[in-house]
């Protein structure tokens, strides 16, 4: 099985790659369109801001490539947000393969932004990506923007309001938290993705 990590300039690429290695998968880091199209699984990691993230994908000529993929795709953190329609962060048009907006956490008394730390996952839909995951297990989040819940939401988490923690639409999947930094829960979810 060939797994590629799309090199969109995010700083967590190394961490995701090591997490896959711990699962016995050596993922190639690439920004080459042909390599990405031919891969069995495509992972779009990302730490940073939506605007520069999309700009980087445009520079690399990868916007249409990613939109046209038919194999399982996983966006992690900012990578998940880039799969969505639009982000409030820098008023950025994103890839649009998951019909969802990305919004900043609304200021509320006592609400700390960024949302940083381990939070519980509430399962909303059965899906092979969630195989073996128990309701209430925890994952590690670090983000200031979030995707509201919708029919694409497989699992949600709460920070003031509920937001999407895991999403899916067709072959496109996203995790708002960092599976590569979410201990055994994250390893299981990554393994599930590799098994799709």
């Amino acid at each position, binding site marked *: 099985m060939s797994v590629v990590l799309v090199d969109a300039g995010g*700083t*967590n*690429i*190394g*961490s995701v790659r*090591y*997490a896959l*290695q*711990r699962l016995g998968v050596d993922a190639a880091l690439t920004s080459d369109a042909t390599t990405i199209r031919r891969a069995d699984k495509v992972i779009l990691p990302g*730490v*940073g*801001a939506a605007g520069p993230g999309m700009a980087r994908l445009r520079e690399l000529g990868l916007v249409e490539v990613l939109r046209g993929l038919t194999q399982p795709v996983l966006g992690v953190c900012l990578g998940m947000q880039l799969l969505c329609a639009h982000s409030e962060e820098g008023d950025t048009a994103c890839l649009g393969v998951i019909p969802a907006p990305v919004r900043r956490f609304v200021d509320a008394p006592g609400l*700390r*932004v*960024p*949302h*940083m*730390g*381990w*939070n*519980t996952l509430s399962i909303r839909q059965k899906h092979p990506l969630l195989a073996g995951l128990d309701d209430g297990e*925890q994952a*590690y989040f*670090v*983000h*200031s923007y979030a995707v509201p819940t919708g029919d694409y939401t497989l699992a949600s988490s*709460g*920070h003031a309001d509920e937001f999407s923690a895991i999403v899916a639409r067709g072959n496109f999947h996203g995790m708002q938290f*960092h599976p*590569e*930094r*979410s*201990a*055994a829960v*994250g*390893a299981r979810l990554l393994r599930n993705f590799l098994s799709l």
Partner: protein
Amino acid sequence: MLSRRIIPCLDVRDGQVVKGVRFRDHVVMGEIVDLALRYRDEGADELVFYDITASPEGRGVDRGWVEKVARVIDIPFCVAGGIRSVDEARAVLHAGADKISVNSPALERPALIDELAAAFGVQCVVVGIDSLRDADGEWRVRQYTGDPTKTRALARRTLDWMVEAQRRGAGEIVLNCMGSDGVRAGYDLEQLSAARVICQVPLIASGGAGAPEHFRDAFVDADVDGALAASVFHSGAIAIPALKHYLHECGVAVRR
């Protein structure tokens, strides 16, 4: 529900984990990767590595161990010590660290915080603050605390610096209360509570943990998001599973 974080802090000197009392008289506690794995297995929520000699010696973090830790660890970790440019921060993040923490270099040149936040996003940028109460009752910032012979007392008030750091792009604040550090008599709840009022980003308590009750007090009374400790974990005086069990029994949300 967001859990409160238990964060072992590993002070790194010459590739080994060390711990001193009141920032002095360091003794070797163990090898970095061994201790990192031990804490991961015990249920630590996050790890912080401070290269305590980097800033006073004017050199950057030795990054060899960062990649080693990143390969084996599946919980988040933050690296601090002598990061004084976007390029140095990028190298540490690319080696696999999830966050970088700046302290003395941000005091030298506060715009460093803006630059790091612009380059990597605020979620990567932690500002560490070493603070001590002066004779006039004000908490003020200390610089270069890794080496007692080079430590400087600044005129800058701790709470003023905390406001400025957030405005510039700090995504998290670690407040190290030096007056309580290493003496295991409890976190400085008065100072942490004062900080909490003006801190809109996650606030991490540091300095003074000696008993499970101290963690509860920091979470319940000072409402901090995480509590950092070193010697009580390194020595085995407090085991993380037992600490989390205790906190859970006290009604504090923790990851178990």
